[in-house]
């Protein structure tokens, strides 16, 4: 807090705006942009892991495993993903609490579901009711990450499954001819080659993931949407040093610009990455690059 801002009532014009935009709550708002980027950074590896597992399962020759993998990657097609978000946040929370309940309170004899209540013993509560605020917030964020990873893992599974099928069959046949086992061929031949085919789809998913980040708000995390609503709402002179009318429109306008910049930068970045990876590849894009160079 700057000294010039000690008495906001005396300020006007740009000074006022400058002080207004540097209040403690605004710093929390700016920090929440970091939360969005952090979410993106944490979700990507997990979603890739879930997706890889799903795609590998879908390829399995064991019928129930492949059914599971295909079911996982296909269910998200028919159902709005926001329904999954709302579902998983409660379902995961209850699943964790139920597991802890079974482990920590083995001599509990009442049912867990009593009418409209979900009752577990106090020791099994997650996070414990005595835990400090930051534990609650972190737990909420982790639940959100897991939810995102499960839903986007399903989308990734679809992309990777397609990429695995795009690797030329002859490559696998050659591997088999050399006497590799199924597992060896999968890890040594299929997996290294599939990424080129997967990249366009994964890039697309990245753009989609960026545009899904505001849904964090629905999962109860204090993200940019939360702060924009909070800060933009009408502030009366009685309760705030910086009274103003309903500015939510401007705050959401700022968010809109933020996301436009993020997608624009990503688009450019992905284009570059694709060009780099296509260099020397036997694909149409690689061919075009060769022609330009020649």
């Amino acid at each position, binding site marked *: 807090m700057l000294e010039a801002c000690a008495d906001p009532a005396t300020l006007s014009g740009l000074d006022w705006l400058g002080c207004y935009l540097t209040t403690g709550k605004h710093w929390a708002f700016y920090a929440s942009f970091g939360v969005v980027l952090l979410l993106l950074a944490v979700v990507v590896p997990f979603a890739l892991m879930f997706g890889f597992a799903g795609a590998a399962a879908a390829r399995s020759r064991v019928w129930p495993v492949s059914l599971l993998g295909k079911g996982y990657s296909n*269910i*998200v*097609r*028919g*159902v*709005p*993903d*926001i*329904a999954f978000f*709302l*579902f998983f946040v*409660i*379902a995961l929370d*209850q699943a964790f609490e139920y597991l802890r309940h079974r482990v920590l309170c083995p001599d509990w004899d009442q049912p867990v*579901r009593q009418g*409209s*209540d*979900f009752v577990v013993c106090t020791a099994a509560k997650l996070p414990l009711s005595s835990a400090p605020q930051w534990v609650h917030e972190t737990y909420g964020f982790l639940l959100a990450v897991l939810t995102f990873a499960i839903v986007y893992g399903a*989308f990734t599974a*679809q992309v990777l499954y397609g990429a695995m099928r795009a690797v030329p069959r002859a490559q696998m046949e050659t591997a088999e001819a050399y006497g590799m086992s199924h597992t060896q061929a999968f890890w040594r031949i299929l997996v290294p080659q599939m990424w080129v085919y997967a990249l366009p789809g994964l890039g*697309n*998913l990245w753009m*989609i993931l*960026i*545009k*899904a*980040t*505001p*849904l964090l*708000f*629905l999962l109860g995390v204090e993200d940019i*949407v939360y702060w*924009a*609503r909070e800060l*933009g709402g009408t502030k009366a002179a009685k309760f705030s040093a910086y009274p103003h009318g*309903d500015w*939510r*429109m401007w705050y*959401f*306008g700022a*968010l*809109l610009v933020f*996301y*436009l910049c993020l*997608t*624009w930068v990503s688009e450019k970045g992905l284009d570059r990455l694709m060009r780099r990876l296509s260099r020397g590849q036997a694909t149409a894009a690689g061919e075009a690059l060769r022609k330009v160079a020649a």
Partner: protein
Amino acid sequence: MSCLQTIADYGLRSIGIGERLLPRTDFTLCQQFTLIGSGMIWNIYFGVVALAAGFFLATAVALGKGSRHWWLRKPSEWFIFLFRGSPLFIQFFFAYFAFLSLKSVHPVFDPFTAAWLGALIVLFLNTSAYTAEIFHGALKSIPRGDIEAADAYGFTGWARFRKITWPTMLRLAWPAYTNEAIFLFHATTLVFFSGFPAWQQRGDALYYASYFADKTFNPFVPYPILAGYFILLTLSVIGLYGLVNRRLNRHLPQIGRRRMRIRPNLIR
């Protein structure tokens, strides 16, 4: 209370016909099925109207983006970038608060803050932008021979567009457009979670599903019901669009027909 009675009471609850109060305790499966199904009316309304209106704007914007004149091309490009580059969720919020501000200027804007019009406009513009991009891609991949043949036959202007360019564009774009339609229907579930109030608790399917999940603290019943409804809706969209696809491709040899593949573009 029998299930038929529940359906009579709550079947049209989402549009304000029937019982005024939502059930509060002792939720039955029948109530959950009925109310969530009743909410689907809104999802279908938003989806159908936005798609029908968006189709025409999308065609115009796609032509604009392919235009030789910069004053047509630039606005179209910006329009597409604006709506495809930002999350629909934020667009809803922004539009709602913008309409709220306008409302205080003039009462003409009153209905815009209600979901049935305000959210519909956002969905309409959003689907127009996504569809325009699809149509633009299809326009660019119209075989050159088709256009040359049209020229050779003396087709020009409107006649060439109506008889040659437009049907070919639709034919090429149709599989992708089907996906867009599916995901627009999915996107309609965002409406009542993004500022637009559900007046008198008249909400869409997800609104009621989350109502039940909150009240019973049991997500394992309402959300699978919702999923079931949406899978049915998705299948009917695929069926309907498949019929149109058959018609668009009816002049092609059977084997050469492009098989429709449903590939998701997921969320906006």
